[in-house]
């Protein structure tokens, strides 16, 4: 009798679980927009990888949804003297393998980062400022820098901590196989199928608030239309990088909730500053070669900028998934300068400026850009081409795949071309140094300065900011430097992309300016 009773009770439980599906309710399926190429958090500085790593691993310092620095594995940090940063580490944090998180692990991680074998883009750019590491006690670590370096906490907000128990030089393959895939994050590794999905389970020893999801399935759906379809079909709970063409439809769909925020990714046109003489793709109005590069003249650059109707691009081409901008950062970001407005649309003044610069009959320009990199990239340059046409600049538009485009842009073979820049650090020194700093291989400045813009006054101001330890004073300097730079029109700023997520009804996501998708920030609502 009791046997039967027990059996039926068990059957009842099974039936109940089938009907209510609690297991299903606690599984979150995320559709990411690009393949994750490695589980090794120090292998490749690739945003899809970093976005995934945030589920499993943690950094000393993290960013909140608005890009502000917040404590993570470090509870606090301070400058001991001009060249020494001290980080107080969070006690009671465990790794997925059960070991305790201590200063040893931080030292181990910083030592490992530059040693990853065959890394195609190393995280050492974020650790190279550290000249030596001093473990004071298990909960305290001091990092010594070469000279004053106020940006160290920001740099370290990109570096995921792994346990020192992994031994000397753990291999990337062992991370991908799961053996080394150990972090302190809210979810732990279960399996990785390259190009398909990564399965994760909740880590019950997590120090922070307990995540709502028992299981996370992280799927890679790079095709835009399929990603939207998977959401509508209910196969996934949340999708990232919602394609703008689907936006109008999804905004009115009762099955879907959208989360959007203006991201740190700006889209702009680079102009060639490297050639004093003729630049490769700018000619006189009748196709004649010009003696000097007209793009070196600020009036010409300003004319090209004023000729663009940014509002129209944002509304028509981007379907409202962007805002016009005149600088690299969105309102609300650290060092955002509210005095820099998006350049107005003024074709009459643009024409006058061109005439004043000695080109009353206009110019002939070929505008290049990628067609598979940024949201609607090819359509944007087509729109710009038509707008330039209206001020008498005959424009040929040439979009091409990123792989064929980017090398040419980096060799200064182009005259005007579209690019984007996501400010990973969330503050202005990053673009001012990497984008607009004078190209200097020895000092590592101007690394992304593909137009080879050079402005010694700007360089000096940024250098001064980098040596300023007081946060308020430094931010002021950066704001001034940004105003100075933008007034000279080194690049033609167009817009800041919005980062947009779509969830099934009943789920909400806290949109992040850094475009990362985190399972812990997806919440079920009644």
């Amino acid at each position, binding site marked *: 009798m009791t046997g039967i009773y027990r059996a039926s009770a068990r059957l009842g439980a099974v039936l109940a679980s089938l009907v209510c599906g609690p297991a299903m309710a606690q599984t979150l399926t995320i559709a990411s927009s690009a*393949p994750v*190429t*490695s589980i090794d958090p120090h*292998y*490749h*500085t*690739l945003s899809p990888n970093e976005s995934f790593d945030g589920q499993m691993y943690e950094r000393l310092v993290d960013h909140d949804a608005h890009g502000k620095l917040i404590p993570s594995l470090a509870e606090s940090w301070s400058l001991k003297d001009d060249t020494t940063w001290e980080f107080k580490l969070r006690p009671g944090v465990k790794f997925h393998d059960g070991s305790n998180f201590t200063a040893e692990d931080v030292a181990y991680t910083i030592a490992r980062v530059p040693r990853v*074998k*065959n*890394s*195609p*883009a*190393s995280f*050492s*750019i974020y650790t190279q400022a550290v000249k030596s590491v001093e473990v004071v006690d298990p909960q305290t670590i001091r990092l010594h820098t070469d000279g004053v370096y106020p940006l160290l906490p920001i740099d370290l907000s990109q570096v995921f901590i792994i346990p020192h128990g992994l031994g000397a030089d753990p291999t*990337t*393959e062992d991370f*991908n196989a799961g053996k080394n895939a150990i972090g302190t994050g809210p979810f732990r590794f279960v399996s990785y*199928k*390259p*190009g*398909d*999905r990564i399965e994760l389970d909740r880590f019950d020893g997590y120090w922070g608030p307990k995540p709502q999801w028992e299981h996370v399935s992280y*799927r*890679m*759906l*790079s*095709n835009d*239309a*399929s990603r939207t*379809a*998977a959401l*509508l*079909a*209910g*196969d996934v709970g949340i999708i990232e990088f919602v394609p703008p063409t689907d936006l109008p439809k999804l905004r009115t769909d009762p099955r879907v909730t959208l989360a959007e925020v203006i991201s740190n990714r700006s889209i702009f046109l680079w102009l060639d500053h490297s050639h004093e003489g003729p630049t490769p793709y700018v000619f006189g109005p009748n196709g004649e070669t010009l003696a000097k590069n007209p793009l070196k003249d600020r009036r010409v650059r300003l004319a090209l900028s004023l000729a663009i109707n940014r509002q129209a691009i944002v509304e028509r081409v981007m379907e409202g998934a962007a805002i016009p901008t005149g600088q690299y950062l969105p309102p609300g970001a650290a060092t955002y300068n509210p005095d820099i407005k998006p350049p107005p649309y003024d074709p009459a003044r643009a024409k006058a400026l061109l005439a004043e610069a000695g080109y009353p009959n206009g110019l002939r320009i070929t505008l290049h850009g990628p067609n*598979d990199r940024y949201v609607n990239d090819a359509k944007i340059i087509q729109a710009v081409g038509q707008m330039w046409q209206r001020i008498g600049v005959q424009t040929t538009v040439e979009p091409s*795949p*990123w*792989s*064929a*485009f*980017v*090398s*040419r842009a*980096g060799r200064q073979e182009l005259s005007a071309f579209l690019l984007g*820049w996501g400010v*990973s650090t969330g503050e202005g020194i*990053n673009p001012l140094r*990497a984008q607009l700093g004078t190209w200097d*291989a020895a000092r*590592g*400045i101007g*690394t*992304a300065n593909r137009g080879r813009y050079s402005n010694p006054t700007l360089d000096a101001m940024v250098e001064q900011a980098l040596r300023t330890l007081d946060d308020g004073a430094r931010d002021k300097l950066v704001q001034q430097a940004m105003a100075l730079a933008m007034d000279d029109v080194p690049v033609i700023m167009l817009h800041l992309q919005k980062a947009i997520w779509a969830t099934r009804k009943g789920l909400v996501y806290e949109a992040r300016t850094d475009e990362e998708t985190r399972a812990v920030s997806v919440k079920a609502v009644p």
Partner: protein
Amino acid sequence: MLTWLVRRLIQALFVVLAMTVIVFIGVHIIGNPVDILISPEADQAERARIIANLGLDQPLWRQYLVFLNGALHGDLGRSFVFNEPALKLIAGRMPATMELAVTAVLMSVVIGVPLGLYAGLKPNGLLGRTIMAGSILGFSLPTFWVGLMLIMVFAVQLGWLPSTGRGQTAALFGVQWSFLTWDGLRHMAMPALNLSLFNISLVLRLTRAGVRETLPMDFIKFARAKGLSPARVIFVHVLKNIMIPVVTVVGLELGSTIAFAVVTESVFAWPGMGKLIIDSINVLDRPVIVAYLMMIVLLFITINLLVDILYTMLDPRVRLETKG
């Protein structure tokens, strides 16, 4: 037979060599993989270090010789992106593509031949005409669009099938296959159908044309006059005679279905080789591109070889030696 085989293999070797040279030069002209892989925030010293690390600082001819030397030892290089041997990467993705392609080609035979046979026997019937009209849609509609429509109808509207991805897998001979589980089959249904639509139409039309051509022939009339049952006439005498073009096409289509399943794979997020090769081309991951194309060339050569051997079984008049 043996000289023929040896000759075929030597030809194959030259095709593979020529292909590797073309890929090396092609990728070199398009751009530098480091420009795509590297973080734009990395400094110039880091960039130089990575270029040297990947061996891209060497002149192209030397890079090619290094590759040839490795290939002779069974090493086709490591992927720049994944830091894993290119062959291992491709082998890991191969079962997914193989099961999809083989299922699609099987479907094209199982569905295409009977439909074609019917349309050939009853060319003026309503059903026969409908089949022929349908086949026009089958090969003229773009795979990409059909795939999305399938998802919209069966996954989004009706909710019968999962929209994308590969389902649960089970091991057979140490390899994970999804056709062994119910969930796997449900996931495979739409991509396999999408991939086979074109082939179904092709096989169907070939079969119909063959039937129409064979029916009025003398040996069919004699077979009928001899009093053979209609079933035997159709399934033995007609069918066997129309199989040569069908086998040729199915063989070639198997090759191209495997090699070019990429559109279907990306629409359905199917983790096969096609997606791998497209991603690799986008980032100029040369070792993977070279290894993949070498494999595809070998695949086509093998399939052609098998098709030639099948001919001799289907048609005793064909002799391999005389064909050369």
